Structure formats: structure tokens, C-alpha cells
């Protein structure tokens, strides 16, 4: 880093080195960008991450298997449910445990609600970064309801720790189903209003369309996942294409960026894919609530989780894209290695190569549109 700064000093006067972060309103956490600007136009934005590194992978080697579950909440605290699920699936693979159907349905419901909550934050902060604060508060208002629901389900609003190895911790509370359906009825109409309020606002479109275009090949090459990948026109969703849990039983569409307002893969596409995904999640939750099987909510798992030596890799479709866990066991009670591969991490890697030629204001749109969450980058 010092080397970089020194190099900049040489041509001082022509260019300006801007420390965009770590404390900056729109870096979505503690991230620093070394922005090399020529006036308003950027030469390059170099991400400097690690401010939120909490060595979770190292911690995973010292807590037992069940004990790491609350830590997964902290990997991506905006969408903690997926981190729970991914880790649980990986350990279940190691243990060769079959998850009861009801637990799988509960996982799907909780995850899709969590996806709605996460995308609301993402789209809301995006609007706020573009300068419209009202949509953010509207999004957070809806998210509060989702949080209330998840709180009633698992006792926490953010760090759910709901999934367990072999199932989930709690069954549905009384009256919860009706509350969810009532919320979804409201939410579906709210999304229509949301589109009219901000999505199709002409200033908003002008700010996002044709900005920070990531082509399909680039997206694949850089390992972008989830809505960022789909925003670039790649029709891929782990839930549909590498199905896990209860997802094969649900009918849903996978929204893909079509360049409706500009080029395929621009910031607007990535944003709009998220809006559409919220609608799909709402559909999935409805289907899941309808077809919910009866039965156990957790498989019989020994209290001392001690899988045989081996390694397992699990992939789930998190709100920020594919989240993969790579858990290696050496036959003891503690994992030999827990590795979380997160969507934000690889998404950050592309910023440096996309940024040249963008304006400073576009950097904000780019960061918001790839929806990075600092703890998920740093883990």
C-alpha cells in the first residue's frame, strides 16, 4: 500500500489520490478504496479490505461443529440465515445425516424471508447511495416486519442461529403462518409501489443504466455469483440448477438481467434482478407454507458431533450469491478447517478492473450494485 501511495505522489497535480473509506457513508461497512481520480473521473479504485476480518475460519477450527453455528451468523450479518444453512449442509454431508422434510421446508422459508430482508437492505441502500433516502426507509420498514417474523421464529433479529446440524432449532410459532401470509400480501403490493417510487424514476435509471457494465464472460471469469452474475445475463441459480433442501419442490423463476434500460450487466440490471428476486422469494415462501410437511424438525444427531475424517463442500444460494462452505474433518470433535467462500469477496475483486473511467459518483453506484457487505468480504 505504501508503494502505491508513493507512486501517486510523483504525478501529484495531475491526479488526486482519494481515500474513499474506511469511514465513508456508502462503502457498506468498513472498506477502504484508494481512488485515483482525475477530477471527477476515476483512473482506478483499488479496494483495501480486511478492516472487519475476525478470523472466523480460524475460530472454526477451535469451536466444535455445533459451536461454530453462531459464528456463521457473523459472516454475513445481513443475511445470516444462508450462512447457517450452508454450514449446516456441509456438516450434514460429513455426518451423512438426512434432514427431515419439515426441517428443509423450514429452512427454505426462513432463508427466503431472509433473502427478502437482505435484498431490501441492498436495494434500499442503493437508492440511498444514489441520493434518495426515502426508499431506504421504506425498505427498512418492510424489513422490520420480516425481522419481527424471524425474531418470533428464532429469537433474534439479525444473528439468527436458527439452523442446526440436522435440522432447525424451532418449529413454527403459533399464528406465525398467518402473519407471514399477511405480510406477503402487503409486501407484494409494496413492491409495485416501490418500483413506481424509485426503480423507474428517470434520474435513478439515468444514474444506473450503462454504468459499470460487467459482461457475462467477465462475470464468470471473476467468479461473480448470485444476483451479480444473473445481472450480467447468466441464467444460473444454485437453488434451481444444483438443487438442495426443499427447493426442487417449489416453482419459481430466476430473474436475469436483460439490459432493459441500458446494457446487459449494468448497475441497473443488477439492481433490478434483486427487486425481482424479492417477488420470487415471496412466491417461494407462499408455496412452502402451503406444502409444509409434518414431522420432525431435526434429525437425530449425536450430542457429540464427531464426523469421520473427510471433507465436504456445500453450496447454497445466499442473498449475495453462491455461498460455499468447505469443511474438513480429521475425525475429532473439532473441524480441521472451515472455509467460507462468499459472494462479496469475489465481487470485490472485480472493482479494480471495472472502475477505470467511471466517475466518483459511479463508484458509489458500483459498490451498491454489487451489494458487498464488509463482514462477508473479510470474514
Amino acid at each position, binding site marked *: 500500500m505504501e508503494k502505491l501511495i508513493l507512486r501517486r505522489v510523483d504525478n501529484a497535480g495531475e491526479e488526486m489520490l482519494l481515500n474513499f473509506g474506511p469511514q465513508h457513508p456508502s462503502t457498506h461497512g468498513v472498506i477502504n478504496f484508494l481512488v485515483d481520480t482525475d477530477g471527477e473521473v476515476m483512473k482506478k479504485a483499488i479496494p483495501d479490505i480486511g478492516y472487519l476480518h475476525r478470523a472466523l475460519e480460524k475460530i472454526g477450527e477451535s*469451536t466444535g461443529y455445533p459451536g461454530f453455528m453462531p459464528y456463521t451468523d457473523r459472516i454475513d450479518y445481513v443475511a445470516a440465515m444462508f450462512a447457517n444453512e450452508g454450514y449446516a449442509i456441509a456438516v450434514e454431508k460429513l455426518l451423512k445425516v438426512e434432514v427431515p422434510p419439515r426441517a428443509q421446508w423450514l429452512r427454505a422459508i426462513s432463508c427466503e424471508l431472509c433473502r427478502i430482508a437482505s435484498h431490501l437492505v441492498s436495494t434500499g441502500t442503493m437508492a440511498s447511495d444514489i441520493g434518495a433516502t426515502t426508499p431506504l426507509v421504506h425498505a427498512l420498514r418492510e424489513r422490520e416486519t420480516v425481522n419481527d417474523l424471524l425474531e418470533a421464529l428464532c429469537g433474534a433479529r439479525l*444473528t439468527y*442461529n436458527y439452523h442446526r446440524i440436522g435440522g432447525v*432449532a424451532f418449529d413454527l*410459532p403459533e399464528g406465525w403462518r398467518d402473519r407471514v401470509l399477511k405480510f406477503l400480501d402487503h409486501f407484494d403490493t409494496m413492491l409495485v409501489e416501490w418500483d413506481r417510487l424509485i426503480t423507474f*424514476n428517470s434520474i435513478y435509471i439515468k444514474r444506473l443504466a450503462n454504468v459499470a457494465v460487467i459482461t457475462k464472460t467477465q462475470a464468470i471469469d471473476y467468479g461473480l455469483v448470485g444476483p451479480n452474475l444473473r445481472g450480467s445475463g447468466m441464467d444460473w441459480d444454485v437453488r434451481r440448477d444444483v438443487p438442495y433442501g426443499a427447493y426442487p419442490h417449489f416453482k419459481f423463476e430466476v430473474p436475469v438481467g436483460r439490459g432493459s434500460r441500458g446494457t446487459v450487466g449494468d448497475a441497473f440490471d443488477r439492481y433490478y434482478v434483486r427487486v425481482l428476486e424479492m417477488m420470487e422469494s415471496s412466491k417461494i415462501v407462499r408455496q412452502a407454507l402451503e406444502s409444509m410437511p409434518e414431522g420432525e424438525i431435526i434429525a437425530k444427531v449425536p450430542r457429540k458431533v464427531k464426523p469421520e475424517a473427510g471433507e465436504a463442500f456445500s453450496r447454497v444460494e445466499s442473498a449475495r450469491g453462491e455461498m460455499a462452505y468447505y469443511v474438513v474433518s480429521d475425525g475429532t470433535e473439532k473441524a480441521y478447517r472451515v472455509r467460507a467462500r462468499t459472494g462479496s469477496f469475489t465481487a470485490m475483486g472485480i472493482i479494480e478492473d471495472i472502475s477505470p473511467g467511471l466517475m466518483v459518483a459511479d463508484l458509489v453506484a458500483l459498490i451498491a450494485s454489487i451489494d458487498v457487505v464488509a463482514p462477508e468480504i473479510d470474514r
Partner: protein
Amino acid sequence: MPKETVEQYFGNVTETVQSFWHGLSITLSYLLRRPITTQYPDRTELPVRDMLPPRYRGFLEVDPDICTGCQACERACPISCIQINLEKDSANPKLRVVTQFDIDEAKCMFCGLCVEPCPTGAIQHTREFEGSQRSVRNLTLRWADPENPFPVYKVAKGAEYYPRAPLGSLVRAKLEARRWDAPGPEFLPPDPTATAKKPAGPKAAAAKPAPAKVAEAKPAEVVQAAAQAVPPAEAVSAAVPAKADGASAAPAAAPAPAPASTVNPGDGQPA
């Protein structure tokens, strides 16, 4: 900027007018809808803790009256924020007493993993969450009095429920007994000899009454198995009308809201 056609030029204008028309009408309409926020905390209908769902994971509470001293919670805690010490009662060698049951609420991450293995439901999350303290040391709640240790609870065979104090009452009493700006306890200066021992800290200390611990482990697991067979505590407490204070206090593994004797509506908050 690419070249614009005439249609694009005028299209921009009409699009702007249209989208502003919609956007402005929506924001205006919100002036006529009800805000969802409430003025916290003095204008809420109920005290906030009573509006939280029964599963809410707030401060941990231990009811020493029904604690079996099995240390399952201590083992389950991923961050070792619980420390339990068992000793033989000097007067009655058969009786074991808990001389230390400390929970570092400042370190606790409210994950709920300690609640699940508890055979009697002695350790539970409450809906208490307001406990700011000037000194972080004051956030270590001591459930056993070292001067006056409590004996472990013997689970009667075939016990259906355990007489737990109303959930939240104990922790609330503890929190209310201490001013928020009370000074924390003075710790001893660091022990130079302890540096080598420290990494093993809590475990080494806990392992002292080793024989007793091994003996204890067995019955505890039996009880745990029994506890798993019955429906989880949650379903029960959710069934009880959640409004009455301590409804969620229905102890773990109680098939009916049985220990209602302890559910005393009058002993909640005055509001």
C-alpha cells in the same frame, strides 16, 4: 455520452415527467398514512420486553433452585462465557454445591446453544435486554454466591416439570439491584505464575472437582435424552397467552403450563 436521437431527447423529458408524477404522488400519499414507528421507550403501549416474542434471546437467566450442576451449558457455550464450579459440601460430602456460576453477559453472543442441552430448563434466555453498565465487569452476572453456595438440584424420577421461578424475574432483580454507574469489582493484580496456566484457564479451574464431574455426566445425559423426547419448550410457552408476564417461563419439558403457581401476574412490571 453516445449521440442522442430526437426521440431519445424528448423521451427523456416525458419519462422524467411521468416518473416524477408517480414518485411525487407516492411520497405525498405517505403524508396521509400512518407512520409505523413509535416513540421509544416511553410511548410504547407495553414495556418493550413484554412486546418481544417468547423466543427472544435476551439476557441469560439461571434458576439456581433447579440447576442440576451438570455443566452442559458450560460445555455447549462456543465462547466460554459460562463458568461453573462444583464442590463437595464440607458438611455433607454426598451433597455437591455450586460455588461459582458466572455468566459473562458482555461476552455472551446470545446464540441460545446453552439453553438447548439444559435438562431442567434452569438456564434460559429472557426477554430482558436493557442492561447497560458503565463498567463492563458488572456485566458478569453471578448466579451462585461463593460465600453461600447452592446445592445441585436432584431430578426426581419421572418428573414432569421443574418448579422454575418466573422467567425474567431473577435477572431483572439482579439488574435492578445494581445502578448503571456502579463501579465494577476490583480484580487482583495479574498473577505472574498464572500466565502459563491461563490458556487453559476456565477448563483447568473447572476440572478441579474431577471425580464428581464424571459421575454427574451420566445422569445428565439420560435426562437430556428424556428432554428431547418431549416437545420443545417453545411450543408450550407459545401456547400460553404470551401477554402475562412469565408465561414464557413455562419450564423446559413441561407438557402442560403446569407450574402456573409461579406465574403471578402481579409480580410483573407495574405497567
